[in-house]
């Protein structure tokens, strides 16, 4: 239940951001993590950004996610 998914901020409007999760766009609240910019990677939980992620490591995580998904789907 504490799953957090990394995504990339595409656009920000007020307290809301459009976040890209490997090609799927979702609206995410920035109320808990306001100091972010377009292009930043954030960790998202139940529709809220809860932390900004280091970009290089976020990319690595995304790659691992995809790899794990592939192996779970088998």
């Amino acid at each position, binding site marked *: *239940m*504490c*799953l*957090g998914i990394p995504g990339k901020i595409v656009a920000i409007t007020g307290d809301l951001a459009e976040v890209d999760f490997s090609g799927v766009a979702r609206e995410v*609240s920035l*109320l*808990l*993590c*306001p100091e972010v910019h377009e292009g930043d990677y954030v*960790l998202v*939980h*139940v*529709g*809220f950004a*809860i*932390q900004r*992620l*280091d970009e290089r*490591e*976020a990319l690595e*995580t995304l*790659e*691992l*996610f995809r*790899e*794990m998904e592939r*192996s*779970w789907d088998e």
Partner: protein
Amino acid sequence: MSEIQSDERRVASVVEEIAGLVDGGFQAMEVCGTHTVSIFRSGIRSLLPEHIELISGPGCPVCVTPIGEIDRAVRLAHRQDVVLLTFGDLMRVPGSTSSLSMARAEGSDVRVITSPLDTVEIARGEPGKKVVFFAVGFETTSPAIAAAVREAQKSGIGNLFVLSSLRLIPPALRVLLSSGKLALDGFLLPGHVSVIIGAEPYSFLPREFSSRGVITGFEPLDILEGLSMLLRQRNEGRAEIEIQYRRAVRAEGNPRALRVMDEIFIPVDARWRGLGIISDSGLALRKEFGEMDAAEAFDIPYEEVEEPPGCRCGEVLQGLIRPPECPLFGVRCTPMHPVGPCMVSSEGSCAAFHRYGGMR
């Protein structure tokens, strides 16, 4: 392709490192249900030396919710004037006589939401109804719920109520260690709870119990690294709280989220399935938000309910027995027909053992 190969190489090298660090038995508890699932799915157990034992802890919010609290939500759902909202994981958890999904099948208005902000929208769209959010979760989820409560109050919505079953992780760890029943060499501490709370709230582990912990991420590689860090601490005679999951966890946590949580909620004594009442381990709405507290607004006294006969979920949650040691495991209790919550939630250890085969 090359990145995948390099990941595989990294996994292989950490596994080798762990093998070199093991010296005699080593028992670690993975506190968080998301860790449990990742460990099973990725087959990490089969990569580890035999002497390393991973025990699942009480970090599945659905599993530690007492039956009496499920019953209260079901009772509310049965009211004609109520729309009951909750996260999907809770729907099938059996109460003493019914569950939320049964209530829905019988015609109650029960809806699954994915974000606490949905509650504000739904309350706005149902002005003639009382919209109750049955909120379950740990520190990861509580700030988001707090933010939604604040939004609802700001926008003057008067028909949203929160039935809080929110709980805090550190007090539960204290109880586990105080019981003296577990011989643990260390904890893999929950990564996403720690994104919010940081490292300090665990400092009592080394200070009071000479115990150690590593705040760990959820990829297989993270978990292996977390284990290797724990082993190193043990071998070097250190007992500390370290952070493996550095890409997301800062030592101070997320101060903004902590502030929002503190503005709305206050720690109260709470019941945990299997662990009993733990002081200051739950979150209730502060007085200023009292009119949104479903426990105050509705007449739903808590009633103590016996555990289903034979279910040993309590001991599973404390790490005292493995799911297959429960006589009902896989016989009368399966994911299709769960007896206890540890089999309902996909993050429960009984469900994980059942789905992925109960090896070591």
